[in-house]
């Protein structure tokens, strides 16, 4: 017997089933109806339905033959623009099957491409515009170069509303025969906010512990972010730099986290109003500022350990300034 991950099992197959995002859905349906799809750019935070919308659009556009007409690429995983160029070229060279005269290329996490790669991408988009439409997916529009933005219809996916999330969770829990308490749902909303993927994953993991109540939820959440993140921050604030760096190395090596993952977790720990770190608000704001700078450098290709070490040293400095620890 096997059990699916619920995020996949309950991923909507058609646009109609999508949770909220009504205006976008209605525009996409019109595209399907007219069989006229422009290049698309779906932007918005994680877990709001961007990939789901792209896949559902593909299904409705091509019907049963959707798999043959859709190429799904993830910019973060493809090795450079040359690979993307080759795959798109091979793919777009053949005619689309069925009554839609072009194929659909879904490029997820497009905002992770360097601007050089995006320059090349815009050419690819133009070269194959007769035989292929692109659907780019990104968290931030601002990380997509203007010439590409200019070629796309841009749709913003809003974080989902509390009611939407809770209704969906209840639906899944009922189908799965899982018992959920009101405070459990409330807690999942609290930790996931508008991110439905996180909400569903949390629900499934918490259900493995038994009844999904707030205790189970917080137990899951406490362990999604490694304990080492908090420990590292605490050590750095106390000026114990060398020990903090050991934690850092553990996170990089044993957990296989990227520098950007780590800085993001640090940032959400610092900005979490329930944080167990005892730091004054001014220090939290200052830390967030430095975290942003370090994140920027790593995105630009700098060495993760060095940049994060520099960050830890700055935290130590702040720790002394505010006499923490």
């Amino acid at each position, binding site marked *: 017997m096997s059990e699916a991950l619920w995020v996949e099992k309950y991923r909507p197959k058609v646009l109609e089933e999508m949770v909220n995002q009504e205006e976008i859905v209605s525009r996409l349906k019109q595209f399907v109806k007219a069989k006229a799809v422009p290049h698309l750019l779906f932007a918005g935070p994680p877990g709001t339905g961007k990939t789901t919308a792209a896949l559902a659009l593909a299904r409705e556009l091509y019907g049963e033959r959707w798999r043959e007409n859709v190429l799904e690429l993830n910019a973060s995983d493809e090795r450079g623009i040359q690979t993307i160029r080759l795959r798109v070229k091979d793919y777009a060279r053949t005619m689309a099957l069925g009554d839609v005269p072009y194929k659909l290329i879904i490029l997820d996490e497009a905002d992770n491409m360097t601007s050089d790669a995006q320059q090349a991408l815009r050419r690819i988009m133009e070269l194959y515009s007769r035989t292929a439409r692109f659907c780019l997916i990104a968290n931030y529009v601002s990380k997509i170069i203007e010439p590409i933005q200019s070629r796309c219809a841009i749709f913003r996916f809003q974080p989902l509303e509390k009611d939407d999330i809770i209704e969906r969770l209840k639906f899944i829990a009922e189908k799965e025969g899982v018992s959920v308490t009101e405070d459990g749902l409330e807690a999942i909303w609290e930790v996931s906010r508008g991110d439905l993927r996180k909400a569903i994953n949390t629900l499934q993991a918490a259900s493995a512990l038994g009844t999904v109540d707030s205790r189970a939820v917080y137990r899951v959440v406490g362990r999604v972010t490694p304990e080492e993140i908090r420990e590292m921050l605490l050590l750095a604030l106390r000026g114990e*730099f060398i020990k903090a760096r050991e934690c850092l190395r553990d996170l990089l090596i044993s957990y296989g986290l990227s520098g950007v993952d780590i800085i993001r977790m640090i940032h959400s720990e610092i900005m979490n109003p329930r944080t167990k770190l005892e730091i004054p608000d001014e220090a939290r704001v200052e830390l967030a500022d430095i975290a942003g700078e370090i994140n920027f450098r790593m995105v630009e290709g700098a060495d993760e350990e060095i940049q994060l070490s520099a960050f830890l040293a700055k935290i130590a400095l702040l720790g002394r300034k505010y006499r923490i620890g």
Partner: protein
Amino acid sequence: MSIPWVEKYRPKTLKDLIDQEEAKKKLISWLESWSRGKPTKKAVLLYGPPGSGKTAIVHAAANDFDLEVIEVNASDFRTATALERTIARTIRERSLFGKRGRLALLDEVDGLSLHQDVGAIDAIIRIVENSRIPIIMTANNPWDPRFRDLRNISLLIEMKKLNQRDVITVLKRICLKERIKVDTNVLRIIARRSRGDLRAAINDLQAIGEGRRSIRVEDLDVLIPRAAQINMFEIVRTVLTAKTPEQAKSVLALPSLDYQMLFHWINENLPYQYSESIEALAAAYDALSKADMYFGRINRTQNWSLLPYALELMTAGVAVVPGKPRFRFVKYSFPQKLKMLSRMRELRMVRDSILSIIARKCHVSRAVANTEILPYIKIIYKENPEYGRKILKWLGIDEKRFKSLS
């Protein structure tokens, strides 16, 4: 199927092209100089922001002068020789369309990526110098130092960012032809959001207007403003124009120095030496992290002239800091990063193979699989192994391999 309005309504003649009078005048007189057989310059470098009409003006002018446009995109070629060969061949071939003459359009020369197209600029210069037909190049930003020689041999023509009124005028014309009833307010909003990018504005209009008889202001809600880019160009220029040759020489005078190794060593041992002063440690790490950024930049652009700055920062920048602790003897260690290399590689391979499976199954990247999905599977497996095994089975992940992760 509908065609993009940007193409459908591309101006057929210069008269139809909105604004850009200065550019039109310059372009016309340059093309006339070719007709007379005495070109003022072999090439034009047409520059301006996205959607200002660079490609449009070339096609419109070509039409007016009865020229066939041969379009070559420099960024499609990976090597300079391939580029040169292709252009040389297309320029030699005869016109198929019985036009009077031909014009080569080298689109987006600033789309060349540096390390892949080493020599591409030189190749373009050679092509321009030997060309017997007019060549027009387009670029968003021609002020990149790489383009200096190209600028010298070209006539520079600027396409101005369009103002809101012009954008509205064009949008109105399109709405009229598409028979869409639309409020000027709607067009004003689209125009404002496009910030002078006419192509963006037309695309927006098509996205909301196609197949409709009228557009209301509320219909605009699905579209969002295009965000501004951070101009990396300024930053790079600041870096490239700074020069300290003496220091460069003094560092390069040590030819056997393995500075990458030195860098790891400094990183490893700096905290031990500076542990008494947080202030010094932070300042030194600031310098080291900056040196690292230079190394990253060198790696990406192969611009080795940046090396002296990086070396200076990682040595002098780390050594000369405020509040530096007094000398004391500290035992140094071999960089852990280098020691751990093989174990890291092994771990990474196992992790990557598992993440690839999750990524494919769940339509995410490996990185997202690692932070957004794998932790939950781990929790489930730990708390409820039976349930966890079922999920691993669904994913098709070997349990033993999975266990070796934690």
